[in-house]
Every structure is written in C-alpha cells, then in structure tokens.
C-alpha cells in the first residue's frame, strides 16, 4: 500500500534520514519506533508533503507520489493527526472539522448539512460533545478526537498519528484505541508513532524501527519481544521501566507546604513536600494538576490558601518570585511554554539564570557556553552545539535543554509537569536518573504524570487529584495502578 523507497533527508548539518525503505500493508496499524531524533516525525512529514525528501520515492498503491503540501496529501486521502494539535479557537467543533471543505448551498454555508455530517462522525467516534460546541473547555483528548473526525470527514484512506497518546490520560487513551481499532475495521491504514511500548504491543500489527535516521527492521508484533524492540531501537540494553536505582532519601524536613490552596478550577489542596522527596501527582487529564502547580509557581492567581517554603509563608505572585524562593517549573507544553524559538541551546539554557553570567557588567558568552557544556553533558544532550537552535532539536532533546535551564538556576524544588511526554525510552531512563540525582543532592521534586508506571516507579508518595480536589494521598506501600486509578476516577474499590 505505502512503500518508502530509499528515502533520505538532509537538514542543514543533520542527516535526519538515511536511505530508509520499507512498506506498509493496507488496513494494518503500523508502528514507527525509535529514539528521539531517530527521524520518525521527519519520515511522516515527508509522506504528508511537509518536507520533500532529499532522495527517494514514496509509492502509494503502486503510484509514485510527490506531495508538495499537506493539502495535496489530504486530497489524496492521506490525513494526519498532528502531535501539536492544530485547532482554530474562534470556530466551533463542527466548523473546525469541516474547515476547508465546507458545503455551500445557494451561496451560503450549509451549516445544517455540515453539522449533520460532523455530528454523525462524532457519534461514530463516540464523542460526548456536539458539533456546535465551542472549543474552549474541551480536553486535549477531545481535541484529538476532533482531529480524527477531520480525517474521517475527508474520507482518508491513511491516517497517521504522531505521538497521539503523549498528552492523554489512560481513559482517553483507551478511547482513542477503541476508535483506532474501529477505523482499522473500516479498512483504514493507520501509521502510529509512540514512545510507549505497551501501546505498541496493544495496538499494532507490525512495527518498523528507525535508529539515527537509518532503517533497522520491520517485524510482526507477535514475533518480537519488548527487549528485542528496545535492543534494536537503542542499540544497547536499557531498562524500559521507571524504577528507582538509588535508595530513597526523604528527610523529615518540610521544604514546601500548600495549605488549603484554591484557584480557578481547584480548591482545598493541601500537601507537604519533604526534602529529598519525589512527590507524585496522579489523576486523569483534566484533574487540574497543572493548574495547581501553576498556582504554586505563581503563574496563575490563587483565590485562597497559603504556600509556605521552608516554614515561611511566601505566596509567590509571579514566576520570578517563585524562582527567587527556589522553585522551578518544567511545563508540559514544551513548544509554547518551554523554550524560545529564536534562541540557541545555550541561550535557552541560560534564560532563567542570566544574572549569574555577568562579568564586568555584561553577559559573558564564554561563561554561558561553559555552563552549557557542563549542563548539556549532565543531561546528555545529543547535539552539544551551543549555537544550534533548540527549535530544531527533537522533542526529547528539547526537554533536556529545558531541564538544563532549571538545573542551571540551582533551584531547590523542581516541578515536573509530564516530564517524559514525547520522550523515548532511552531518554526517559536518563531523565529519571537525572531526577534521582537531583533529589539525592538534597533537593525535592514534584512530578505530575499521567503515566502510571512512571508515577509509581519514581515517586516516594503520590497525591491523587480528581476534578480539582484532593482525592487521596497514597504512600509507597500502597502503590498500585488499580488503587491510583480508582482514586482518580472516584470509584470505591
């Protein structure tokens, strides 16, 4: 059905793909697997006409295709559900789905027909919202459903998903998978990128592995084990599980205390963070964990409650105040909140701690570069060029740059919001070990994660949030997926 033949792609200074050839069978769910920067997204982008291949040819149904734009591909029936969800906020659900292919009747948009058709698709996907709802208030998972609905509206034969589950909760992932299965039943070919191996085993028929831009292998999922997959992906052995390698180093000392915190969407949140602790925050997506932490970090307004740091009431009103008290936050939205696109790796790394790079009244580039080398090494960045634009790094490496930024500020408390979103297994393990080093040096971490193995594996203690309220505090002995899930969903065991 789809055949990649000798695809190569060069970016300035980077060979993203080298002579990649394999084929995808009609009606299957085909996974693309590889480390961050392996070239998965690039390959999909070439398929969809976002980039043109430096060399090579793509065949679809034995027809050579050279899409020059995603629209070209769309018209050919090749749709994509983007990693960053592209939606037009000022339009409603139905308008977003139909965008670009609206029906007109008597010179007017035929909204009746548009809404009828989109509602039909939404129903097919089992969505609870309807075509005339506005986008505000929809969760990421729901936005993703809209993106899928869009593909169906176009009657796509092929839909590709670039890390669709990265920002979804377990429940939403389950729903997405249901939808994907039903799409498969309808004979649609699905391409699927994910860093979560369990998902690949659950969903896919076959898997193709890329490493450093080269094609490694394709295998039936039933013929291969997890270990083999990882082996082929990384080229070395890594533990795929989030397991603490070092002993826990929690001390009695309370470094941060939230007392009956209230804010937009949440209320009455109280917790204590101890020195050397990794405190996990679990819950469904939409549980308002992000909002709570934004309030702690001083980005959003609190409407009540107090925050104490080392016993002192501080109540930061802005990120800079929080930073002054030694709190840092790694946001879940890397692109929009994580880094500055015009800036190089070194500058993005230095952004939060610029004051420490002054020499003789001016910023010293040398100091910044030196510091970048130090922290870049520490987080094991793959491209150590200080002048390289962070924008052009792969997702996992972007995350590492952001981590380096906070390490450089020497904060005592670091809040990780979905720290491994879109990060490959190898890099995940590295990030986990960085987190452990961090707490080992007497600092503390709050970690929001929707990946249950991750919270369970990494946390010393877990707080579960449900709809903006604390639903449970779980100590290490009780860590179990089922327990956490039941608290998150509010069901009694």
């Amino acid at each position, binding site marked *: 059905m789809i055949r990649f033949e000798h695809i190569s792609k060069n970016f300035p200074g980077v060979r993203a793909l080298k002579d990649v050839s394999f084929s995808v069978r009609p009606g299957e769910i085909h996974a693309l697997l590889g480390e961050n920067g392996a070239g998965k997204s690039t390959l999909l982008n070439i398929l969809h006409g976002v980039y043109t291949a430096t060399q090579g040819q793509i065949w679809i149904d034995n027809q050579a295709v050279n899409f020059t734009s*995603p*629209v070209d591909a*769309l*018209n050919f029936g090749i749709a994509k559900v*983007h990693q960053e969800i*592209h*939606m*037009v*906020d*000022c*339009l409603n659900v139905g*308008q977003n789905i139909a*965008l*670009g*292919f*609206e029906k*007109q009747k008597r*010179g*007017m*948009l035929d909204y009746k027909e548009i809404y009828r058709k989109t509602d039909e698709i939404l129903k097919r996907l089992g969505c609870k919202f309807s075509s005339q709802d506005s986008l*505000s*208030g929809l969760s990421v998972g729901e936005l993703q459903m809209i993106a899928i609905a*869009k593909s169906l509206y176009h009657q796509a034969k092929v839909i590709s998903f670039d890390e669709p589950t990265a920002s979804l909760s377990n429940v939403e992932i389950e729903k997405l998978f249901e939808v994907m299965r039903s799409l498969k039943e309808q004979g649609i070919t699905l391409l699927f990128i994910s860093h979560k191996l369990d998902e690949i085993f659950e969903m896919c028929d076959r898997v193709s592995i890329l490493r450093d831009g080269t094609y490694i292998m394709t295998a039936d999922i039933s013929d291969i084990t997890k270990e083999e997959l990882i082996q082929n992906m990384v080229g070395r052995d890594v533990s795929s599980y989030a397991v603490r390698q070092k002993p826990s180093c929690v001390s009695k000392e309370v470094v941060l205390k939230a007392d009956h915190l209230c804010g*937009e*969407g949440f209320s009455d949140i109280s917790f204590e963070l101890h020195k050397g602790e990794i405190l996990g925050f679990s819950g469904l997506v939409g549980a308002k964990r992000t*909002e709570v932490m934004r309030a702690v970090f001083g980005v959003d307004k609190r409407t009540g409650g107090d925050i104490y740091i080392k016993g002192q009431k501080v109540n930061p009103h802005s990120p800079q105040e929080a930073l002054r008290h030694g709190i840092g936050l790694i946001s879940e939205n890397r692109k929009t909140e994580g880094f500055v696109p015009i800036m190089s790796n070194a500058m993005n790394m230095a952004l939060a701690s610029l004051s420490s790079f002054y020499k003789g009244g001016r910023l010293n580039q040398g100091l910044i570069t030196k510091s970048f080398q130090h922290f870049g090494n520490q987080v094991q960045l793959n491209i150590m060029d200080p002048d390289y634009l962070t924008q052009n790094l792969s997702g996992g490496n972007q995350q590492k740059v952001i981590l380096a930024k906070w390490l450089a500020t020497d904060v005592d408390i670091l809040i990780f919001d979905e720290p491994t979103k879109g990060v490959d297994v190898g890099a995940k393990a590295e990030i986990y070990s960085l987190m452990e080093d961090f707490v080992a040096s007497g600092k503390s971490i709050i970690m929001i994660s929707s990946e249950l193995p991750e919270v369970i594996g990494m946390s010393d203690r877990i707080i579960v949030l449900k709809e903006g309220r604390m639903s449970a505090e779980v100590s290490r002995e009780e860590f179990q997926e089922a327990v956490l899930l039941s608290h998150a969903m509010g069901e009694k065991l």
Partner: protein
Amino acid sequence: MNNLKKYAKGYIRELTTLLALAAIVVIFSIIAPRYLEIGNLMDIVEQGTVNGFLAIGVTCAIITGGIDLSVGSAMAVCVVTCGRLAVAGVPPVLVCVIGLALGAFIGLINGLLITKMNLQPFIATMGTNSVLRGVAYLITGGWPVLNIPSSYRDIFQFSLVPNLRMSMIFLILMAVIYSFVLKRRKTGIYIYSIGSNEEATKLSGVNTNRCKITAYMLCSMGAAMAGMVTLARLGTGEPTCGEGYELNAIAAAAIGGASLAGGKGTILGTVLGALILSALKIGLVVVGMDTFYQYIATGLIIIVAVYFETIQKNLSKIMGKKKA
C-alpha cells in the same frame, strides 16, 4: 426565550459597544442639550458614514491578523478617479462600478504583496499608502477635481426620508453584505480562522493566500466606497483627502471589538465603533472643548474604550469561572 438569550449572548460585545455609545450621547446631551437635536444626531451618523466604510473594510484585514494602512490613500485614488470620470460625463452608476473595481484592484495589489511576496501587512500597506498618495496627486496634477455633476452626487446624497441619505443606506447595505460574507460564506470563515490560527487553516487545505487577498480586496473596496461618498458629499475630489483616516478606521474597529491579533471582530461592532468616534468628535465640538484638550480627550477615550474590552473579558472570566 432561551433561544433569544443565546442569540443575545452572541452579540454581547456589540451590546457593550452600543451601551458605550449611548453613554456618550447621554453625557453630551446633559452638558449641551443641543447635542440631542435630530439634525445633530444625523450629523453623527453622516460623519460616521465615511469612517464607517473605511472601518468596515479595515475590519476584514484586521480579522486575518493583518492591517491596512493604505485605506486613506486608496480612498483618495478613488476620489480623484471617480471625480474625473464623473466630470467627463461617464454615467454615474458606471462611475461607481469602476470605483469599486479600482478599490478591488488596489486590494489585490496589497494582498499580493502580503501573500506572494510575504511582506508584513503593516510595512507592505505603509508602502502602498505612500505610492497611492503619489498616484492620487499625479492623476489630477495635484489639483482638486471640481464641479462634480449632481447626477453623480445624488446617488449618495439623495434623501429618501429627510435626514436619511442614500450613503447611509449604502453603509447599511455594505455592512449586511460584508457580515454575510464573513459569517455565511466559506471565505469569511476562513478569514476568521486564518486570523486565529493560520497554520491550522492551511493544513486544513484552505488556500489561505486567496482568502487573505480577498480580505484585502474587501478592505480596499470599503475605502473605495468611502471615497465615492466623500466625492458626493463635497462635490469636489481632492487628492489630499483621506490622509490619516486609516488610524480612525483602525480605532473604530478596535473600539468595536476587533483584535489586532486577528480572529476577532464583527462588522456591526465596527460600525458602532465608528459611530462612537463621530459622536465623541461632534460632542467635543458641541460642548466647545478647547482644541488642545480635544487631542487629549480623543486619546483617552480610545484607551478607555478598548480597556472596556479587557475589563469585560475579566468579568466574564470571573463569572464564567472559565480558564482563558
């Protein structure tokens, strides 16, 4: 009932603008009762008409997330061209058609500069503004075009009912047509969605360039209408006319709720914005405010009117307990 409520909710921003307009009228009437005379009120409408046409046009450009600084000069080019044609005896209706076509052509050029040459709208239209002003001067050699025949002037100046000129009816007509295009035609939806998220719109298979060009054409056609009305009002076509009008037009759109960030704004709001500006202007004259203080008052009103927007957003946020 519920339907009505929903309907009203869709126009909440326009209602606020209307309220602001009413407030201005009331305040000035209290200070100077003369302000409330029908003649004066109609003057407000009449003076708001020219700016209204410009502002309606500019709103289209603003919704795409762009801007058009050339409307004043585009208006001047239309004024002198139509003036010459009318004086040369071309049938008035044909003059109007040619004027509109000329507007569309100017918009096409702006649109091409912005899409094909990928220039920032601010800079591109700043450039065309200068070029078009030169063209307007060249067309007449710098002289005004005098003695516009009344057959032409009547098209816009004729009053169906006392005080209700054709030009106002045309403004309403244009507002309705533009609203229709923006809300009920594909192109309109795309214009909004380009302003809100151009990338997503493009990825949805929309020919964004064509839509943007259309928006700039609609914009300059508004300017052309403004020019033709001015020509009829004054009976003289001056190449100097419309200088600096672009800022008034943009102010009207902003007061009416259009956001320079794109994706937001309505024709109705803009028309109300234009009326607010002319009500203010005439009000300051009627109460006899010193010229130098008028500068200050005008500036402050713009700031306050637009600040309304922020207050309102904050209020609805608090009331709706909804995250922005």
